[in-house]
């Protein structure tokens, strides 16, 4: 119960930070810019930590360790080091330009930039619809993650529905009151917690395991676990395919919008330099702990997982689907870090580290705010709402949207099985990677046209639905679907743009 109380104290602090930010917001002539973009005035440290925190989800701590538990050391190269290179590079080349254009022309969303760059109206709405549809599963997963994490940390005392409701209410409250400023401050606080989490967990668990060299040696001595220390079970082509996934980051609406919040462009300098180091500090301990958990065969819950994995590996193809799914659930390693903490950390430390896990789970805040910003700017304001009702009503509409979206996400999260949304998130990553073509074309290729952009948006929507519903679709030559999805999007942009008239010279001069 002590860890759960500490997590509730953490939620209280988060709520206070959000509302504190609201109370310190100064009256402004640009009310919408102030609420949705923190007045484009975030300082260097808050910008770096909150941008990083915004991109870290429940997967970072729980999922990465779980993936490493099942797949071994490959997880780090697969997801972390490729991101450490590609994400800062896209922030350097795309993020800085988005920031400069936003500053100059007042853009608050990427769709506003696309509409101006390609002189289009409804094609922008299509891009909005695709971006928004791909983001919704993340928000639902966030609510589910909150319920699961709080239930696990309280040892089952807090039921899933209550945990999900508490987390959704806290997130909704500070997004509602604090807007981008509150969200950025909360994310900064959460990132500091993440960063402390990795190192502390590594030291505490390392001691509990009797030192890591002994744990690694025991894995090497066990025939079916030794391959976890190499990548021999993993295809190099799949490993290569994963380097396309981080392209998705710059196309995520919450990341693009976050790029617009920096006070000065110089803030991108530190962000791109420190981003790879933050990834290293968080992912390396989590992946290593996930692998090392395989050595805890004396822990009943770990032993149960290992046994389920062995049964699954030896199971005949004729094994019924529901039995296979049950074995997969049993073998899943998403909770190995909490299990290790429960076993080796003192109660008070397990509570603080539990708060670190909650910080990762609550990443849906910026996604909710981003959808609200997109709805009010790309739909409400664009179709005349702002002109008719004014900026104050626009901000209140954004706040109402936050409440409605959270309630819908909670209702869906309580009804639907998580597997569906896990799958949707998986394919949404590939979708956003394909949408990154829009940013490169808009910013670096003057000949690109609105019809090329429409072709990319429609292809992305089709490809995500197709790959999610058809097993093996677009997995050509052993590559993951993200590679053909992104390359075909680029080819479509080139061919369709060359076949259609470019925007006016006046518009091109400004880009």
């Amino acid at each position: 119960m002590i860890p759960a109380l500490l997590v509730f104290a953490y939620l209280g602090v988060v709520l206070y930070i959000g509302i504190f930010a609201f109370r310190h917001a100064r009256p402004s002539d640009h009310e919408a810019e102030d609420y949705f973009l923190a007045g484009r005035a975030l300082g260097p440290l808050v910008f770096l930590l909150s941008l990083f925190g915004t991109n870290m989800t429940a997967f970072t701590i729980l999922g990465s360790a779980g993936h490493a538990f099942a797949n071994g050391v490959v997880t780090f190269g697969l997801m972390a080091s490729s991101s450490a290179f590609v994400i800062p590079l896209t922030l350097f080349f795309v993020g800085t330009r988005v920031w400069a254009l936003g500053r100059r022309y007042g853009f608050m969303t990427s769709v506003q930039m696309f509409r101006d760059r390609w002189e289009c109206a409804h094609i922008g709405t299509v891009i909005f619809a695709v971006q928004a549809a791909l983001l919704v599963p993340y928000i639902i997963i966030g609510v589910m993650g909150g319920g699961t994490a709080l239930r696990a940390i309280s040892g089952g005392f807090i039921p899933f529905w209550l945990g999900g409701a508490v987390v959704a209410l806290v997130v909704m409250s500070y997004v509602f009151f604090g807007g981008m400023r509150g969200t950025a401050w909360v994310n900064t606080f959460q990132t500091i917690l993440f960063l402390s989490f990795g190192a502390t967990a590594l030291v505490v668990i390392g001691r509990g395991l009797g030192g890591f060299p002994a744990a690694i040696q025991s894995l090497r001595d066990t025939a079916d676990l030794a391959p976890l220390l190499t990548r021999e079970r993993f295809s190099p082509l799949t490993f290569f395919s994963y380097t396309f996934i981080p392209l998705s980051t710059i196309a995520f609406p919450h990341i693009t919008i976050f790029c617009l919040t920096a006070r000065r462009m110089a803030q991108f300098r530190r962000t791109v330099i420190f981003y790879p180091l933050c990834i290293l500090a968080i992912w390396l301990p989590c992946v290593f702990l996930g692998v090392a958990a395989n050595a805890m065969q004396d822990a009943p819950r770990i032993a149960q997982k290992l046994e389920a994995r062995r049964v699954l590996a030896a199971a005949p193809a004729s094994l019924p689907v529901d039995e296979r799914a049950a074995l997969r659930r049993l073998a899943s390693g998403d909770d190995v870090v909490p299990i290790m903490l429960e076993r080796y950390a003192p109660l008070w430390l397990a509570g603080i580290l539990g708060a670190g896990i909650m910080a990762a789970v609550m990443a849906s805040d910026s996604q909710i705010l981003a959808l609200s910003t997109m709805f009010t700017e790309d739909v409400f304001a664009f179709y005349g709402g702002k002109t008719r009702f004014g900026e104050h009503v626009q901000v209140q509409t954004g706040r109402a949207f936050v409440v409605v979206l959270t309630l819908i996400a909670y209702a869906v999260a309580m009804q639907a099985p998580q597997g569906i949304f896990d799958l949707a998130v998986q394919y949404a990553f590939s979708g956003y990677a394909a949408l990154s073509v829009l940013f490169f074309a808009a910013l670096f290729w003057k000949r690109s046209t609105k019809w090329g952009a429409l072709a990319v948006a429609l292809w992305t929507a089709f490809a995500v639905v197709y790959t999610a519903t058809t097993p093996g679709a677009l997995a050509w030559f052993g590559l993951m679907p993200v590679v053909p999805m992104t390359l075909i999007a680029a080819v479509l942009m080139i061919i369709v743009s060359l076949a259609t008239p470019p925007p006016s010279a006046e518009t091109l001069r400004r880009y």
Partner: protein
Amino acid sequence: MRPIAFLFVFASGALYALHQDYWFWRRVEPLAFGFLPSALWYHGLYCLAAALLMWTLTRTAWPHHLEHDDPRGEDRRR
């Protein structure tokens, strides 16, 4: 292409290629600190190399022309 731009394109391409470390694919050793398998310490160093490349990029190829754009000038329209 300016020599500095060529250098950065080459460095970025090389770093991207170095991500595919086939030479460590089936090897656990050499272990770092007696417990960190090669796939982990190599990609840990890879992150440090990425940070170094970003530091060099920001020092020598920073897009100053964007920074000096009029921040809230006449072009601002919405």
